[in-house]
């Protein structure tokens, strides 16, 4: 095992180790001081950044770096391969994750000073960094899915960071529901890869699939990617995710988490390239999202929602680029978009100040920005479009009415059948999560 393999392992494992150690100590009743915790965080991510820099240097001069630990477990012919791999695609994402996690840690040390959830936030930040580094450095879809799920759960827990208020928890659950529903795509996709190709590892070549099988796997992965990247029709969760502290909104929905879906598609690119149908669907979803995002963004009146839709618009374009096979343009676009949005999210509280500044700098005529595209439409269509944009394209309502409500009806029907057939008096009541899930969009459509 050479030095760069060690570095790769350290980069991925370090934040996870910090999380595990501090979580364990916390369970044993020890709370570290803010100073100590932010110091450790700074140190960890500086080391990660340095490690990634070394990996970048190695990758540009030589080939991929692969670390194989063997299998986590094996059942029959299936085994869960523990393999890390860094190639030219994953290295920019690793760099992004390491650098931005460090910067967000630095920001949060001041921003969350004296906050009761300080330790919780930093634990989740480390866990998130571990999850995203694992997903980006994974050598197989199995391991990628593990990192993917860690990113998902930390995302939900940080949306619900302010547990004492109701809306953050409700919106966290809503996002959790969408994530879980779309992650079915990733899990079934991996299952299908194992079933048809015998492996889900992409070290040294992609799992060989052909014809309809390739298309099916592509579509399953596309479902997972669209959910994570808040593409149409799942876009409604993105503005709801703005309930957490500003820095977590920045790194999740401006930078890393929102682009993880694009990374998954970039990984699946060899498969995608085989299928015109799947590529066309990626382009269609991306284009719809980009247009949806820019129209809804124009009508949103608050800083974070308008940033959310600005991010979404560009992620939609990234999907188009991936569908067209322009991999490196997509990567450059992701890096640029992630950096700009992180900065803009972190500066979101400055919006009043910035507008004052710009207003005085241009001499008090800020409102005149020239012709708006929507002014070319007839007045009645403008009004309709505005209402459509205000309700975020009715996406939440559509999902609620045509997907969630029928599902709930089916489950209610099934549980009725259960109750009549079995003598047991226990009836299944929809839990809190289901109720919230159903009532969230309904409130908005009233």
């Amino acid at each position, binding site marked *: 095992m050479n030095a760069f393999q060690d570095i790769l392992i350290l980069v991925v494992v370090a934040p996870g180790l910090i999380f595990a150690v501090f979580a364990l100590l916390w369970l044993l009743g020890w709370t570290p001081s803010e100073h100590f915790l932010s110091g450790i965080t700074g140190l960890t991510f500086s080391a990660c950044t340095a490690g990634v820099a070394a990996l970048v240097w190695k990758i540009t001069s030589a080939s991929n770096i692969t670390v194989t630990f063997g299998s986590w477990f094996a059942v029959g012919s299936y085994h869960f391969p523990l393999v890390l791999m860094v190639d030219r695609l994953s290295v920019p994402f690793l760099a992004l994750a390491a650098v931005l996690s460090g910067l967000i840690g630095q920001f949060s040390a001041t921003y969350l000073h004296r906050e009761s959830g300080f330790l919780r936030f930093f634990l989740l930040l480390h866990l998130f960094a571990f999850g995203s580094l694992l997903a980006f450095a994974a050598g197989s879809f199995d391991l990628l899915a593990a990192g993917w799920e860690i990113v998902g759960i930390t995302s939900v827990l940080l949306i619900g960071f*302010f547990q004492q208020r109701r809306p953050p928890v409700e919106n966290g659950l809503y996002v959790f529901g969408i994530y879980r529903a779309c992650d079915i795509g990733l899990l079934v996709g991996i299952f299908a890869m194992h079933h048809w190709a015998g492996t889900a590892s992409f070290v040294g070549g992609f799992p060989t699939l052909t014809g309809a099988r390739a298309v099916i796997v592509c579509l399953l992965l596309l479902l997972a990617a669209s959910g994570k990247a808040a593409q149409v029709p799942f876009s409604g969760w993105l*503005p709801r995710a703005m309930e*957490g502290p500003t820095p977590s909104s920045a790194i999740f929905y401006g930078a890393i988490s929102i682009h993880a879906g694009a990374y998954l598609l970039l990984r699946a690119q060899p498969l995608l390239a085989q299928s015109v149908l799947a590529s066309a669907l990626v382009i269609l979803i991306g284009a719809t999202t980009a247009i949806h995002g820019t129209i809804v963004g124009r009508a949103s009146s608050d800083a974070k929602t308008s940033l959310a839709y*600005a991010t979404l618009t560009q992620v939609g374009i990234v999907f188009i680029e991936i569908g067209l096979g322009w991999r490196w343009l997509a990567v450059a676009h992701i890096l640029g978009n992630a950096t*700009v949005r992180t900065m803009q999210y972190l500066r*979101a509280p400055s919006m009043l*100040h910035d507008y004052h500044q710009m207003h005085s*700098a241009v*001499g008090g005529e800020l409102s005149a920005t020239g012709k708006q595209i929507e002014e070319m439409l007839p007045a009645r269509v403008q009004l309709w479009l505005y209402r459509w944009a205000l309700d975020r394209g009715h996406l939440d309502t559509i999902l609620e009415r045509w997907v969630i409500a029928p599902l709930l009806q089916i489950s209610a029907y099934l549980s009725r059948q259960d109750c009549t057939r079995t003598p047991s008096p226990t009836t299944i009541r929809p839990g809190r999560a289901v109720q919230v899930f159903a009532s969230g969009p309904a409130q908005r459509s009233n």
Partner: protein
Amino acid sequence: MRRALEEAHPFLETYSAAGYFGVAVDYRGIDDPHGAALCPVVVKPEHAVMERPKPGDSQLLESRRWRRRVLGLLMRNSFVSSKTLLRGWLSTSALGLLSAVPLIGNLLAPRRFALLRDWLNQAFLPEPRTELTLMRNTKQSQGAVSGLLMGFTPEEKAGRVASVLGPAGLVRGFARLVVILGHGSSSLNNPHESAHDCGACGGRRGGPNARLFAAMANRQEVRDRLRNKGIDIPPDTWFIGGYHDTCNDDVELFDLDAIPSTHQPDLDFIRSSLDRARAQNALERARRFESCPADADVERALRHVEERSEHLAQPRPEYGHCTNSVCIVGRRSMTRGLFLDRRAFLVSYDADLDPGDEGLSALLAAAVPVCAGISLEYYFSFVDNDRYGCGTKLPHNVTSLMGVMDGHASDLRTGLPWQMVEIHEPVRILFVVETTPDRLEKVIGASAPLKRLLENRWIRLATIDPASARVHVCRDGAFEEFHEDLERLPVALSSHEWYAGKLQHLPMAWIQTPRTATGDRLR
């Protein structure tokens, strides 16, 4: 700040007045697109004042305006276009990584990054030397600013100056230099920035008022008229306007090139005293910040507060009026040397010079609503932060360019955020006025707003007799003498000795520094 100055040089004298210094104006600086009222919100300004470049510098202003305009349009367009479909595609993918520069700079070295920014501003946007349009010019007065009078007549100027100096008791024994300091606060990434600015200037920064006041008081025709009102300013007294940033403790002095060369040594002296005082002030404020090391020296503390005002992630740039509990209206000799832990509003007033109580009623008409308003704002934001305050700042989301809401959808949040009030002690403010109960009752009785505040118990009231020092407390609308025995105040040799290393509220103490009689006066 006043105690810090007096400790810096025992022969400095300080006074204080409501931060708009009696000049209610609609002010437009060289960089402002339009005028803004610099006075308490209950007052409507009748006069307009503009800042304009000195004759030699108008060219400089033109180029500054042009460059600011270009920069402003660039900023706006890059911001707007980053959010659009096609332009956003180009700008994020081609230029996006550039935004890592300010991000990293500001997060890793906020203070140095701000210095770099200031240096760039100096280099590319040099500020022209300016003056204020003070003169009333009847021909221009109609046209320039609709409905407002342009500038002040000498009579009006004298009236404004007298309305501050008279009640404050600064009518004789002027020093060679008198510095008038307005205040405001600057912070980054803070939707509640203006909540730290000057309440008496309508939540704006009070520098122009101080500058205007000083410019008025320096004019010969004003001084002639003041002499008729019993305020005798000697010819060798010079007024300087200034601005104190209460967040980073920076003190800026205006119009220094107009100071007579004979006063240069006095200026050097006052500048060094101000520098010592602002560093001491920073050190005393820093004791309440957990993130500043407890053993920090003045240098470190000053750097710490400077960094606070330039930190992108700082939710509590300063504690502002937090912990306020009392407003003392009276002579400084009553409170000088008293460590009040920055919890008191001090208003200078000398009852002996105000036999008809006109000064007191004018003073209380401004001071009581402003101080009571500030105090109640902190009070209610603290006692029920979720309902009367706006909760924690961390999930705040600026909406409609108007206010903040929580997360992605909530009611508009009003009041102060938790980070601003967390160390507050909710008490209704106590006004201690240095006069007799009879005289105060008359003044309060004549003013309906003050009467309502008192009768409905929004404020508490007490008097201290200027002659006998007996204290009367107002209980249920009637003054009764205060008899309880008081403990003797603890004594300390300096403020720093009293507060060093302590994070919590501190009791009053007597700071014993040697003192002589003559010298400069401030505020």
